[in-house]
């Protein structure tokens, strides 16, 4: 039930004049319809899986939801986990809009996390605001530079960005792992982590014991800014038209190369910041497994949201609740928390089948690649 409510507000760019209440209701139904459908598919899947493990579906799901959003601290915990994912999903969606399939989000997140961890540990301590700003800025630059390079390869040399971004993940993650296990390893720890960052490079907690930090405000600002950039601004128009039809864009005088490289750069910068948040709003240092696959989650969520920033926000919310609920379910039953992953995959297949959203077979391939990448 509570899962349905956010969807009521799935807002998409609506310029069209609404002529009558009837047609308004119809268009509303059209907009909400797919979301409800995919969620229903998810629910059926969840029920089946829980039943298969020999538990009563409804009480189990309710217990899970209670764990995820039962009271204020639970909500804060759920939200805290989702913060980097919001930023990364916005980033990936932005690139999609200009027709660039940035599935290198995971790698850009790692690059950003490493950059933030180093800036936080080796520079300072200094005034908190400044130190945090520095961490995020360096991460954004790092992630942005990586993605810009990949965008440039596509725009100028026509190197398929699907392949190049995919491969970049492994290169970057391995390189970061090398840094964290050899030259930059924290000698006080056994495993592959870097030195802890200074206190001044950490966001402060908003609600104690929940990990929800003031990074929340940064995330809100970034989401709003991305929405404006993508859906309202002149630059966003150019990027969207490039994604819509690059031939049209070229003919009306939009610089297609610049759009592609630009959107990839900002996309990478956002992913980099998502990585920085993993360090500065949670872990306090870089370690080799810091990303836990949120880059891949971002790729999929941006796809379900059809790259629309506002529905991306809604879907990240839904997904965060699902993840958290799955963890809750794991605690009261033997249903593994991978449930949420199975669900999200099911939802994606449902969404894809439903609207025939992605005509390119390549996109389906990417789903497969993703499950292997896990």
């Amino acid at each position, binding site marked *: 039930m509570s899962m349905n409510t956010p969807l009521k507000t799935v807002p998409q760019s*609506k*310029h*069209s*004049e609404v*002529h*009558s209440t009837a*047609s308004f209701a*119809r*268009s509303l139904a059209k907009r909400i319809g797919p979301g409800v459908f995919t969620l229903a598919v998810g629910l059926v899947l969840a029920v089946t899986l829980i039943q298969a493990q020999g538990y009563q579906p409804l009480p189990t799901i309710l217990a899970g939801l209670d764990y995820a959003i039962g009271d204020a601290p639970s909500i804060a915990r759920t939200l805290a986990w989702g913060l980097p994912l919001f930023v990364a999903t916005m980033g990936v969606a932005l690139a999609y809009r200009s027709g660039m399939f940035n599935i290198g989000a995971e790698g850009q997140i790692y690059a950003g996390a490493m950059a933030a961890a180093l800036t936080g540990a080796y520079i300072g301590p200094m005034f908190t605001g400044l130190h945090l700003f520095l961490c995020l800025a360096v991460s954004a630059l790092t992630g942005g530079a990586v993605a810009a390079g990949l965008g440039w390869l596509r725009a100028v040399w026509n190197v398929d960005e699907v392949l190049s971004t995919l491969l970049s993940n492994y290169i970057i993650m391995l390189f970061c792992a090398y840094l964290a296990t050899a030259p930059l390893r924290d000698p006080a720890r056994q495993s592959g982590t870097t030195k802890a960052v200074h206190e001044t490079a950490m966001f402060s907690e908003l609600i104690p014991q929940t990990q929800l930090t003031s990074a929340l405000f940064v995330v809100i600002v970034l989401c709003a800014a991305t929405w*404006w*950039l993508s859906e*309202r*601004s*002149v*630059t*966003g*128009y*150019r990027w*969207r*038209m490039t994604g*819509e*039809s690059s*031939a*049209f864009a*070229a*003919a*009306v*005088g*939009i*610089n297609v190369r610049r759009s592609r490289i630009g959107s990839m750069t900002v996309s990478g910068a956002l992913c980099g910041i998502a990585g920085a948040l993993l360090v500065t709003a949670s872990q306090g240092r870089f370690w080799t497994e810091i990303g836990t696959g949120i880059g891949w989650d971002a790729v999929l969520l941006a796809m379900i949201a059809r790259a629309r920033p506002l529905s991306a926000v809604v879907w990240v919310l839904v997904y965060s609740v699902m993840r958290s609920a799955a963890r809750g379910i794991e605690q009261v039953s033997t249903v593994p928390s991978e449930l949420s992953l199975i669900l999200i995959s099911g939802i994606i297949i449902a969404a894809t089948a439903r609207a025939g959203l992605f005509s390119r077979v390549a996109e389906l391939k990417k789903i497969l690649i993703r499950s292997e990448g896990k």
Partner: protein
Amino acid sequence: MPSSGVQDTQPVLELRGITKIFGPVVANKDVDFDLKAGEIHALVGENGAGKTTLMRILYGMYQPDGGTIVMDGRPVGFKKPMDAINHGIGMVHQHFMLVPGFTVAENVTLGAEPRRNGFFDHAAANDSLVEPMKRLGISLDPETVTGTLNVATQQKLEIIKVLYRGAKIIILDEPTAVLTPQETEELFVLLKTLANDGSSVIFISHKLREVFAVADRITVLRNGQTIQTFNAAQTDAASVVAAMTGRTDVNLGRVERTEPTDGTVLEVKGLETGKHGADAALKSISFSVRPGEVLGIAGVEGNGQSTLAETLIGIQPLDAGFIRLRDVELGGLNVAERRSKGLSYVAEDRHLEGIPLNGTVLEGISAGLIRRDSSPVGLGLAFPRTVRHWSTHMIKKYSIKTSGPGAKCSTLSGGNQQKIVMARELEDKPDCIILAQPTRGVDLGAIEFLYNQVAEATAAGCAVVLISADMDEILRLSDRVLVMYGGSIVAEQQTDATSREELGMYMVGAQTMKVGK
């Protein structure tokens, strides 16, 4: 002369009171239409009159909101195109639905493949083409890869495909829009053969010359309603035009224009390019256009006209030569820079280059205004109130039939999509505009309006390069004509000193004259 295979019998097909509503738009309102065995029945009407919608209902692509389809006296209902195909109805869409990498035989049999032991049966597929090809009097190698065929042949392939599936009723939605005059003639011969065989053809076109050349009867739609069905032999163009537009003063002849003045706006010299795609490479192209002059460029498609247009606007690079717009050298500039120097461009492929098909009307029509935003980061609002108002105004001024600026471009009828492109480019108030096939798929009333807009622009000194495969267009609008053949200019004539026939000779390369200074 129209074919005369028509029997005065019961119609094979009747559409009774068909109604179709899309949101606020009533696309078909109580439409009646009937078709007899062996007749070619033309369906005409202005852009957005509801022709395509009606045919899609007949073909099972849309469900009607009211009315019935009656075949051989019995009411039928088509939930999907397969149902219509099973009732012997076939449709050739304006955008072909062929798989370029498949062979002719594979494409024709696609969806109804002959099988042997569960596998695609090549021999049977090849054989099954023989009969429809014989009926049409054409021959194609079944093993040819479809993508290598030209547009006209691909269209014939679509017709073969429709016949292969046993169609007795064949719908062609604006089939001639992509054909040269010669190819159009060939198509007509083919359609008449079919009609004489007892099949029925529904033919949609905006060109009355074609309608009268081929149709037995003509049904006119206006605003989604049937206005009248004419016997082609007993009526004339003027009555049909009056029924289509509700006006009697539509100008179908030469457009009234002011004389060009002295000087040079656009000067092109020694233009050479490489070969891009299917079109010919340019060989030493030189011409100039005066203020207020319309320079027509005629030619059979594929002889370099598309390359010329794209080279002028800067989508394709040039290897040699120069392009000067009022003494500014354009050669090294990109599209945006050329446009800001005063060049404007109506692309020939509107779905690909003209409009963002899945974008909104607003996004398509205001591209010119947004291009002028020169702020380095471009974080300002793309569509401030002024731009929105402007676009609403343009929709009115160009009578673009749409529910509003927020409507998706793909929901507009073809002609109305073209008006978006023309509005955007003409309202840029350019010094020089390149028009490539500017009125393809546009109805005759709207053509008159667009020509008048062009005339107004030339009166203000705009130079026009008019690239068109439509001879009437060249003769009605241009002052001077160049003919392109094989990437070169083979003839130059004053429009009032030449004729359709003479230009035709140059177009097929049967004749050349010394051109250029």
